[in-house]
Each structure stands twice: as structure tokens, then as C-alpha cells.
């Protein structure tokens, strides 16, 4: 067992894949010379060479399109979109080709592509660079969407993505990179479509993913310390496939549920989670399933405004305590 950072967990999984399989190669902006804008691929160019660590121009559609072509031809590319905001420039490639070519070709073509990207805000990168769009991809049949909250899950899910025959949107968060956590030395994977109870409790169920799971865990600590409320935190780990079994079982026990996500409240993927939970656990609810989500505004640049636009521990605590 080792204690490593989220960044190291991902970096390590990429490294071992590059070593083990010559069909694996990386493409992205600043991943080679620069070592990655978040330092994930530091040292990779030197170790694996420019054929396998390819710096790309600022042309997301090309990055993804090339990745799709290589994957269709039998390679195992891992492409990087520096932030999920830039995926907008590659949407047609992702949504209409990567997600659908297997289906539309009657199963003849597969696109085993991993698209790594960074979602969320909190770095004062302003409105067009701070969005959380993973929920959009989670609505699309044909895609996988992974949203790890811990180093353990990041490595385990990436290993699964690298073996999956479909295109996976592998969503990371810049504020999670320095997060430390336990990761076993021996080989393990985390399956897609299996949520995990990260904290056991009996009074309320908090369902979340990606960075919000960490915020929820901190809020749960405070709820216990300050209010004697034991919250059960369910981490979704993948949005597609979506597993709500643990969440529903939890709600049947606690009778109260709060769904937390970073993206805008209106039409956020959390609404899907709420919908499914109330369908499955209606008779067990003591009140409506509540949501804590990003404010419906373009992300502000000013630090205090940005912080108030993104859900924090206080927001979660308030949602749990407030009669609703």
C-alpha cells in the first residue's frame, strides 16, 4: 500500500499502460515538452519518445478525430482535452462519431478511445474555462463517463477505461490532483457502473461525484461533530453507466437524500439522480430529494464570487439541516 496523490495515481496508470502495451500512445496539447499542463505526463516524452507522446496543435476536433481514427485502426490512444470546456470544439467527433460509430456500423467498428479531461472551477479561470460538462456526456448512449474522487478510484477506473472497447470520457479535477490517498501496490481495477459508499451513516444520504464527493465528506465530518448527524456519502464514480443501487438502499435506511454536484443546478445530471432515486425510494422518503449544485451563472472571475457560485461544505450542511 502506498500513499500517493490523485495526479500520481493517474500518471502511474498511464505509465504502466505505455510500458505494457505498444498500441497505447498519448496525444494532447503540452503533454510532451511541457510535461502536461497539470504535470501528469512529466518525463513521459523522454521515456517513450515523440511517436508515443505527441504534442498536438490547439485543435481539439483534430485531437479527438485523430484519436478516433487511430482507435478504429486498432491502436489504443489516450487523448487529452486540456479542460472539458474545450471539448465543445470536439463535440461532433465525440458525440456523433466516437459514441455512435460502433452502433451505426452494426458492430463492425470499435473506438476504444480514452479521452482524458479536466472539469470544474475554483481557479479563477473565469466563465469559459470553469465549466463542469461531464453531465452532458453522461446523457449520451455509446459513451462511458468516469468521475473519480480519490486516487484509488482514479487509477482503478483508468485501468478499466484502458481495457474498455468503448470511448471513455475520463474526467479529472484540477483541485483533486494534490489529494493524497491510499493506493495498493498490487494490481486492482475499479469497475464501471458501481457506486461506492465512502462514508457510512444513518441520518441522511448524500450522493455526489468527482470533487463534490470530497466536499461532501468534509461536510459529513462537520455534520457529525457539530450537529450529531451521521451522513452516509455515496460516491457515484461513473456517471455512465450509472449505478444508484447503493444510493437507493441508503435512502431506504436514512429516509433523507441530498444530491451534490458542481455543475449548474438547472438540468444538471443531479436531476437524473434525483429522478431515479425518488422513483425507486418514494415510499421511504421523509421529504423531497434535495440538490446542492452550482449557481445558474457564468462562472465569475472574482474570487469571492466564484467561491459562492460553487457548492461548499456550508451549502451541503444547510441542505441537510434545512426542513425540506
Amino acid at each position, binding site marked *: 500500500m502506498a500513499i500517493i496523490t490523485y495526479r500520481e495515481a493517474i500518471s502511474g496508470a498511464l505509465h504502466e499502460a505505455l510500458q505494457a502495451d505498444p498500441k497505447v500512445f498519448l496525444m494532447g496539447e503540452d503533454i510532451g515538452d511541457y510535461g502536461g499542463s497539470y504535470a501528469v505526463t512529466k518525463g513521459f516524452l523522454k521515456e517513450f519518445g515523440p511517436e508515443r507522446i505527441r504534442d498536438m496543435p490547439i485543435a481539439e476536433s483534430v485531437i479527438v478525430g485523430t484519436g478516433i481514427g487511430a482507435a478504429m485502426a486498432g491502436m489504443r490512444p489516450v487523448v487529452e482535452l486540456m479542460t472539458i470546456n474545450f471539448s465543445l470544439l470536439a463535440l461532433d467527433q465525440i458525440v456523433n462519431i466516437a459514441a455512435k460509430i460502433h452502433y451505426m456500423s452494426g458492430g463492425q467498428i470499435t473506438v476504444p478511445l480514452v479521452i482524458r479531461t479536466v472539469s470544474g472551477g475554483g481557479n479563477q479561470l473565469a466563465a469559459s474555462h470553469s465549466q463542469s460538462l461531464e453531465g452532458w456526456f453522461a446523457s449520451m448512449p455509446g459513451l462511458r463517463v468516469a468521475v473519480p474522487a480519490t486516487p484509488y478510484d482514479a487509477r482503478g477506473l483508468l485501468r478499466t477505461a484502458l481495457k474498455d472497447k468503448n470511448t471513455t470520457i475520463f474526467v479529472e479535477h484540477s483541485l483533486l490532483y494534490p489529494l493524497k490517498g491510499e493506493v495498493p501496490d498490487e494490481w486492482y481495477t475499479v469497475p464501471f457502473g458501481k457506486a461506492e459508499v465512502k462514508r457510512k451513516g444513518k441520518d441522511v444520504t448524500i450522493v455526489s461525484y468527482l470533487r463534490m464527493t470530497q466536499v461532501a465528506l468534509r461536510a459529513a465530518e462537520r455534520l457529525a461533530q457539530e450537529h450529531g448527524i451521521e451522513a452516509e456519502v455515496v460516491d457515484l464514480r461513473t456517471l455512465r453507466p450509472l449505478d444508484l443501487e447503493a444510493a437507493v438502499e441508503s435512502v431506504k435506511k436514512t*429516509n433523507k437524500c441530498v444530491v451534490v454536484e458542481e455543475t449548474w443546478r438547472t438540468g444538471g445530471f443531479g436531476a437524473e439522480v434525483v429522478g431515479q432515486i425518488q422513483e425507486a425510494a*418514494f*415510499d*421511504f*422518503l*421523509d*421529504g423531497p430529494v434535495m440538490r446542492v449544485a452550482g449557481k445558474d451563472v457564468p462562472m465569475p472571475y472574482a474570487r469571492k464570487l466564484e467561491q459562492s457560485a460553487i457548492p461548499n461544505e456550508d451549502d451541503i450542511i444547510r441542505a441537510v439541516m434545512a*426542513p*425540506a
Partner: protein
Amino acid sequence: MATEIVMPQMGFDMKEGKVARWLKKEGDPVRKGEPIAEIETDKAVVEMEAFGAGVLRKVLVSEGRTVPVGEVIGFIGAPDEALPDTASAPAAPAQAPAAPAEAKEKATAPATAASAPATPAQAPAAPAEAKGKATAPAVAASAPAAPGREIVASPIARKLADEMSVELRQVTGTGPGGRITKEDVLAYVETRKSAPAPAPAAATAQPAAAPVGEQVIELSKMRLAIARRMAESKRTIPHFYVQVAIDMTEAMTLRKGLNEALGGGVKVSVNDMIVKAVAATLGKFPLFNASYVDDKVHVHPHINIGIAIALDQGLIAPGVLDTNHKSLVEIARASRDLAERARQGVLKAEEYTSTTFNVTNLGMYDVDNFTAIITPPQSAALSVGAVKSQPVVRDGQVVVREMMVVTLCIDHRVTDGAQGGLFLKELRAALENPVSLML
């Protein structure tokens, strides 16, 4: 702002209601929760409580008029405040939800009705009395009398209430908008547990803790209703009892012959003959077919004799309507049908809310005699014992005759012993000359 008084939804399928009686006049002060009107539905007459406090400023719908559920029938407000335009559109009637707990709550006939839209789960009051025609243990499997507005309770609260036999109407909701939450139901169950238990039959005073092995039985809704009505009856009606032994020998012979002649389909029972005799006697003694209300005796125009029927969950006394106009065979048919339907739980409301005199027969249990409790708002009742072979003296000789003891229970506010004696003399004469029952 003046509070609207709105025709409440007091039954799942209630579409309109009649303002039977205003209990307040314009200008009278009204306290919150005070009954202000009697609303008549096709099931019962129910008191409606004021939701606001103030003065009854305006009566929009007069006594005797029927209006749709949700229509504004009056206003309560401060003596001088302006009233909204009375031609305003009626408030949308509250949906009576088909919530599982509601459907399972077989409410007693007297239901509480809240008058105006509000958070409904207020502190529970004892259900308002159904005036006029309701009888005591009135529970039917048909649509329950729901309160004026739906009870707001969370799904888990409803589930728990159902599992723990809690009437949501009794629970105070502390959730948003007065919603009854799981906590509220659990808190109610706690207080219900700690409410003082009735004194045990063995008179030694027990300490506060329940002794080992003691079983606490939750009363069914029907039993609760019976408990309330009977306690109230004994508390308010000055009962006295007059008893006589009736020679049923001739009646038993006639009955045998009748049933042979009828040959199978309908069977006339001893009780049927008693009911027939009572009906005829009531015709001659109308004070026993009456109700004492507010220092007045209301003599009822119809004689509807209630026949007490024992059920698993309690007791019900549905009535044979216009008993005095039915023949013995018709009474036999009716009583069989009532018993059948009572056991299936499919009696019609008017069958148990319009009885004027009850006959309870414990003869099948070999009981010699007993004294019943009058079912309000009746003023008399008959308890019947078993027909037993007894030695009696006739013309100086000891002979064996089929004797049956009956006890007439009487409300002393309505009539007295002498009348009771005369009633029983008449009844006895009818049963001892049973051919008269064939008329």
C-alpha cells in the same frame, strides 16, 4: 385579511354539501377551532370548525342550501375589516388524495372538517359529533370520511403510521408547511405508549413500569369509536332499566310452523320476532323512538330498529329501515342481509346512521339477562337474553315454559319507569300472543 369559510371536502368522492345549520349568526364572535356550522353530506351531518378567529362577518350560503365543495360560504374577520368581493370565484377544492394511509383509515362516521385552506395537520381535536342521525360504532369499508383538507405527510410517515396503526389526523406535523414527518409519527407513538393505561381488573396498584408479560393492545378504529361513544353515553344519559320475563312458548311454536311453511329460503329467527314486536310497540310508545337534544325531545317519524351484530373488530348495529312497515318475513330477510353485509364490511352509511332503537340479543351465548348501554342519540334500547326452559307458576300449577328475560334501557330525561313498564307490558303481550306478529 378576512378568512374565507369554504365548503370542505369531507369525503373522498364528495362533490357538494348542504349547509344544514349555522351554529353562529352574523356578528357572533368565533374562536379558532370552534364549530360554526353543520354540513350535511349524503353520509352524515358533520360539524365544521372555524379555521380563523374573529367575528362571523358574512353568511353567503344560508341554511338548507347545497353548494359545491370549495365554494366560499362565509367570511370570518375583524368586525370592521373590508370583505373581498363576494362574487369572487370559488376556491379550487382540495384534492382528496388516494394516499395509502387515507384509504386504509376507516374513519368513524363523525369526522373533523377544517373549514379553510391551511396547513391541515394541526393539533388533533376529538372528532366532531355527527348530529342527528349518526349512531355509535359506525365503521364502513366504503369511502372513509376524510378531513376537510388532505393530510400532508411524507411517504415514510404514512408508511409508519400504517404499520403502527396511527391515525395521521391525530398527529401534529412539524415539517415544512405542517407536513407530518417520520419523527412526528414516532413522537406520537411514544406519547401514546406513555399515556396512562386503564386500571387492571386485579385491583392492586401497579408501579409505573409495566409488569413482565403485560400485553398492550392497540384498539382498532371501530373499537376506539365504540369506546368513545359508550363512555359518553354512560356519562351523559341517565340510564335506568326495567326488566320482564316473557313466555315465548307460543312464539317458539309459531316460529317452527312458520319456518316449515316457508320451506327453506328465509328463516325467521327469535330475534326477528322480537324486532317485529318492538316495532309495533314503538308505534304505540313514540317517546321510546326519540332523541333528547338540548332540553327537547325529538320524536322520530320513522322506526328504524338497529340489530346489534358482533364482528371481529367490534360491533355494529345496522338498521332495518321502516321496521314497522315490514312483515315478519321481510324483517327476517332484511336482518339476514344486514348481518351478511356487516360481516363483509359493505353496509351503506344510512343503514347504520339512521337507527332509532337498538335491539341487542345475547341469547346465543346462553346469557340470562344483561343491561345494555343506550347508543346516542337514541333514548332507549332492548337487551334480550336466551330463551330457556323454566319452571313457572300458571293457575297455581308449576309448569315448564320457554322463558326469555328482556331489559328495557331508558333515558330518564325522556320518560320514566311507569312508561317503561307499560312498554314492556305491550311488548310482552305481542310476543305471548304471537299471531299478532303476523298482521
